[in-house]
């Protein structure tokens, strides 16, 4: 579960200053849970619900949540603890010299997962800020696991198996697969993370976020070269805009006039 700066709150002018320094300072921007990670967390909860609802199903699914970040990143973990995640962990990797380091992120997650031996590792397809799309695949390689991308649903399917639906190109594929594996989650409609009740939050106060120190993890070797960011440029999508404010009829006439001028028939 990653927290990311809310990009919509960043003023346009700040992007330009970020480009000049090759590093964007988001310390003042409110943080939100990464939307893809949120969907992944909700899919896991639905799978847990399904497992416990099945009559006579002895399989118990337990889930942990992990984030890499500072103390501000703990808030979504406390939400997940309230929603039924057993263990919630934070790795404080410290201030990185490089703004983008998916290779190190994958090493940290791999070190943690090897310690705990998970059957299923669910994560967002890409983070909303850097969006490198590298971490899940680096992680799968470190752990020697298959990876299924762009999952839209997860269901328990017996011992060591899950039933998964995922997008592959223009196809939607549903099949039963063996665990362990890595699963990434992208755009899943109607999959916002549920909101815990006050009772759930109070009950979860005993389940504190556990801090994990990178030095105590057995990190795998990167095994590859990491790309190095050397330049950032803003993207100018602006046009020579005509602004208009008036009645709805006047606005409609303005649209028709522009279309006529440009030879577009509605």
């Amino acid at each position: 579960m990653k927290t990311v700066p809310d990009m919509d709150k960043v003023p346009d002018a700040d992007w330009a200053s970020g480009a000049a320094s090759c590093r964007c300072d988001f310390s003042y921007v409110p943080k939100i849970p990464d939307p893809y990670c949120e969907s992944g967390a909700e899919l896991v909860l639905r799978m847990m619900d399904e497992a416990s609802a099945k009559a006579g199903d002895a399989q118990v699914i337990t889930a942990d949540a992990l984030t890499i970040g500072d103390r501000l990143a703990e808030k979504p973990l406390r939400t997940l603890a309230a929603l039924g995640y057993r263990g919630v962990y934070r790795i404080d990797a410290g201030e990185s010299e490089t703004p983008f380091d998916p290779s190190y992120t994958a090493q940290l997650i791999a070190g943690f997962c090897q310690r705990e031996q998970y059957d299923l590792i669910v994560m967002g397809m890409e983070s909303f800020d850097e969006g490198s799309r590298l971490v899940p695949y680096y992680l799968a390689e470190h752990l020697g696991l298959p990876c299924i991308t762009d999952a839209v649903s997860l269901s328990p399917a017996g011992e060591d198996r899950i039933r998964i639906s995922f997008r592959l190109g223009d196809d939607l594929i549903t099949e039963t697969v063996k665990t362990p594996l890595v699963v990434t989650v992208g755009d899943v409609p109607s999959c916002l993370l549920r909101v815990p009740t006050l009772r759930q939050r109070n009950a979860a106060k005993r389940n504190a976020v556990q801090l994990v120190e990178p030095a105590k993890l057995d990190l795998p070797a990167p095994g590859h070269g990491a790309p190095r960011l050397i330049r950032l440029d803003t993207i100018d999508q602006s046009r020579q805009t005509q602004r208009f404010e008036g009645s709805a009829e006047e606005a409609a006439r303005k649209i028709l006039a522009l279309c006529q001028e440009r030879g577009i028939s509605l």
Partner: protein
Amino acid sequence: MRFVLVASWIPADPSENKTKASLPWDADRLSALLSAGGLRPEDGETILILESDADADRGAFSDADLNGLAAKAPTAAVTFLMSPRFRGDMICDALLPLITDADLVLFSAGASGDELACRMSRRTGGSSITAANSFSLCDDCLLVSRRTYAGHMTGTWQLSQKPWCVSLSRTLSQPDTAVTEALKTTDSSETSETSFALSHRQVRFHHVCQPDSLQASDRIRTHQEASDNALSEADIILAAGRGVGSARGALKASEYAEKLGACLGCSRPVVMSAWLPMDRLLGVSGSLTSPRLVIVCGASGAPAFFTGIESAETVIAINTDTDASIMNKADLAITGDWNEILTQLTQLR
């Protein structure tokens, strides 16, 4: 420099048992990209990873299909890699011996290409990056540009360790009239042969072996007919954003689109709220379009969304928020209620 171009996954179309005989990139844009990167077709090889039934030698692909695909490859050397399903780790096992002496390995856009690029870099000790818009050589390093920070910025990355494993941006799968016209003008494209016998190419066939334990007998595949083709080819698009307010609002937008002869698209919040299906999504995760006109109603204009319509000739934005970023990205920015304005528009036109 030796390069390899990998079409990461070409599925068989089960609905008609025919292949989609197309490569996952626009030929002209790819040619321009290779040329700009200083790559010559004779120095490269194309590997096409095709979905094939494990029991059949070539699965659903006829010789004519393979011939057609090979003819579209930008290199003389073509390798067909047949795999019953997409399993990135296993396909990489088969790819590894095929790219041993490559300096640069380019993978087609999408999650499959991203996965293969990343895994191959780790297996070869090289370096990787995804969704590249362009690249160039500099002092024995590769400089790659791609969008980052949710599409707000373009970053340039330096890859040092070879082989450089790079997956391409989805925008390169869309035709660009400027590029196509430029290629016609320079008359540099000699690869547009209309027919090319397999025997004239250096062609190889390989298979990805998968153990029986991976054969999923309960596999269900639903082919989602590309209604995003309708969006990609539409002349007029009506794009609905979060400001339409509800599923009912999205339905209303749909009615307006029909009356205006427009194709309906939308931004991410609309599909995530399930007000419209995923195939209506515009942007980096959805359709990339180049219509004559797009009318944007109630969308803030986030870069990831706007990338889907930035090639439009004319953009008209209707929004109650004068400070929404779309209001600077449109040719005509109207402050007002989209419902009232479109009602008038459909009556007056």
